[in-house]
C-alpha cells in the first residue's frame, strides 16, 4: 500500500486500507516507546509547527512528543498571547510561519474546515488536530489502535458512544472509523445533544444508556462540554449524571470484557464515576500512550518520503 496523501484532514475520506495501514505502521512506533532511548532519527531536519487555536493538553503534548521522538523540531503556537489578538488571520499566521521554512502544520481550530483551507492554500502537509465539532482524526485512529490491540479486530464489534454527540468531533471521527472497519456504532445521549439525521452516518440512536449499552464490546464516554453549550442542555450536571453516567449497573449491561474509553479530560463524578475511570476495564491511559505512537506513524507517513 502506497500512502500518497499530503495531509490528514479527516477519517471520512480515508479508505479502510489506509486506516489499517496507519494502524499497522503505528505498531512499529509503539515498540519504540518501550526502548531505553525512545527516539529514532527518521525526521531529523524537519520542522513541524503545532498551531493550537483552542485549548489542549493531551493532543498538543502528544504531537510535540511524537515530533521530538522522530528527531523533528517541534514548534508550538498557541493563539492566546499571539498576534491573533491583533487581528491576524489564520492564513496570514500560517504563511508567516511557513516563511520560516517549516515542513508541516498541525492545526486545531474552532472553525470546521480550517485545516482544509490551509491544506488547499499551502504546499506543506497539514494534520487536523480538531476542527470545531467536525473531525479529530488522530484521536479516532488512536482509539481504533487501542481497541484493535485489546480485541484483535474491529470488524463485528459493538461500540456505544455516550454523551454530547452534537458537539463532539471525537464522536464523528470514531463513527467514520469504526464504521469503515466493520463495527456497529450506537450513539446515546439526551435528545438535546444528539444531532438530527445522525442515523445517516450509519449509527443507531438511543436516548437511554440501558438500551445502548446492552451487550457492547466498547463504551466510549464523552465529556459534557460546558464551553460549547448554549443554555441549559442538559439542565444541570447532576441531572446528566443521573441519567447518563456510567454507573456500575449500567456497565454490567455491557459484555463482561467490555472496554471503557474516554478521549479526556474526564469529568470525574459527572460522566464517569472515579472508580470506573480508574477501574480495570478502563483503558483511558492506554489511549494516551498509544496516541504518541499513532501520531508518530502519521508524521512518518506524511513527511518521511520524497515529495
Amino acid at each position, binding site marked *: 500500500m502506497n500512502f500518497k496523501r499530503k495531509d490528514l484532514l479527516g477519517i471520512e475520506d480515508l479508505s479502510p486500507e489506509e486506516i489499517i495501514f496507519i494502524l499497522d505502521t503505528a505498531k*512499529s512506533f509503539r515498540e519504540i516507546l518501550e526502548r531505553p532511548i525512545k527516539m529514532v*532519527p527518521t525526521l531529523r531536519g524537519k520542522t513541524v509547527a503545532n498551531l493550537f487555536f483552542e485549548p489542549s493538553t493531551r493532543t498538543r503534548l502528544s504531537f510535540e512528543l511524537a515530533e521530538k521522538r522522530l528527531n523533528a523540531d517541534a514548534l508550538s503556537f498557541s493563539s492566546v498571547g499571539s498576534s491573533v489578538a491583533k487581528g491576524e488571520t489564520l492564513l496570514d499566521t500560517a504563511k508567516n510561519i511557513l516563511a520560516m521554512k517549516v515542513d508541516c502544520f498541525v492545526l486545531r481550530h474552532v472553525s470546521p474546515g480550517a485545516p482544509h483551507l490551509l491544506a488547499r492554500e499551502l504546499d506543506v502537509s497539514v494534520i487536523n488536530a480538531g476542527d470545531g465539532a467536525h473531525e479529530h482524526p488522530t484521536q479516532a485512529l488512536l482509539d481504533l489502535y487501542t481497541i484493535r490491540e485489546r480485541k484483535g479486530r474491529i470488524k463485528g464489534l459493538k461500540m456505544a458512544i455516550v454523551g454530547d454527540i452534537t458537539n463532539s468531533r471525537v464522536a464523528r471521527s470514531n463513527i467514520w472509523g469504526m464504521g469503515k472497519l466493520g463495527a456497529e456504532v450506537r450513539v446515546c445521549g439526551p435528545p438535546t445533544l444528539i444531532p438530527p439525521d445522525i442515523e445517516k452516518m450509519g449509527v443507531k440512536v438511543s436516548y437511554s444508556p440501558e438500551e445502548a449499552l446492552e451487550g457492547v464490546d466498547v463504551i466510549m464516554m464523552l465529556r459534557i462540554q460546558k464551553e460549547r453549550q448554549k443554555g441549559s442542555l442538559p439542565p444541570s450536571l447532576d441531572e446528566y449524571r443521573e441519567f447518563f453516567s456510567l454507573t456500575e449497573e449500567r456497565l454490567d449491561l455491557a459484555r463482561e470484557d467490555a472496554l471503557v474509553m474516554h478521549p479526556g479530560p474526564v469529568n470525574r463524578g459527572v460522566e464517569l464515576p472515579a472508580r470506573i475511570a480508574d477501574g480495570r476495564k478502563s483503558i483511558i491511559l492506554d489511549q494516551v500512550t498509544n496516541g504518541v505512537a499513532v501520531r508518530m506513524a502519521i508524521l512518518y*507517513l506524511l513527511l518521511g518520503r520524497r515529495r
Partner: protein
Amino acid sequence: MSQLMDKEDIRRIIQRLSHEILEKNKGTKDLVIVGIQRRGVNLAERVSKMVEQIEGEALPTGILDITLYRDDLTQIAHQPIVRNTDISFSLEGKKVILVDDVLYTGRTVRAAIDVLLDFGRPQKIELAVLVDRGHRELPIRADYVGKNIPTSSEEMVEVKVQELDGKDEVLIIKRGEH
C-alpha cells in the same frame, strides 16, 4: 540469471559461519544474535539454532528493522514498510553478531549499528553475511562471510529463503531481467 547457491550450499555455509563465530568468540559467553529485516532474520534464526546444536546453549536472538534509520528516506518516493524490531534483552556488555543476507554498499549495516547503539552499549558488534557482493560506499566490512561474489552494479543478488520465498537459493540477476 544464474544460481549461485542452492539449498545445500546455504546449509553448509550456515554451519561453517556458526562454527567460525563460536571459534572466534571462544564459546557463547555474552554472545547474542540480531538479524536484520527481512531475510537476515531467517538466517539469524538458523545460525542461532545451529549454535544451540553445537554448544548445547541457546543464544538470545533479536530482530531489527532499519527503515526508520535509513539515510535515504527523503530521496525515495515510495514508502518502505516499517517492520518489527524486537530486542527484548539487554545489550550492555554483550557481543552482538549482526546477521544479514547481502552486504553491498554498507548503508544498511551502518543503520543497523545505529539501531543497536540506541538500545544500549554492546561490548562489540560483529557482522555475518551470506554474500558479500562488493561496492562498499562506507567503511564497513563483514567478520564472517558465506561467499564473496564480485558483481557489477548492473547486477542484483537475490537471496531466497524457505520461510518467505518457499525455497533456499541465491541468484544473480541482471537489472531489467526478471
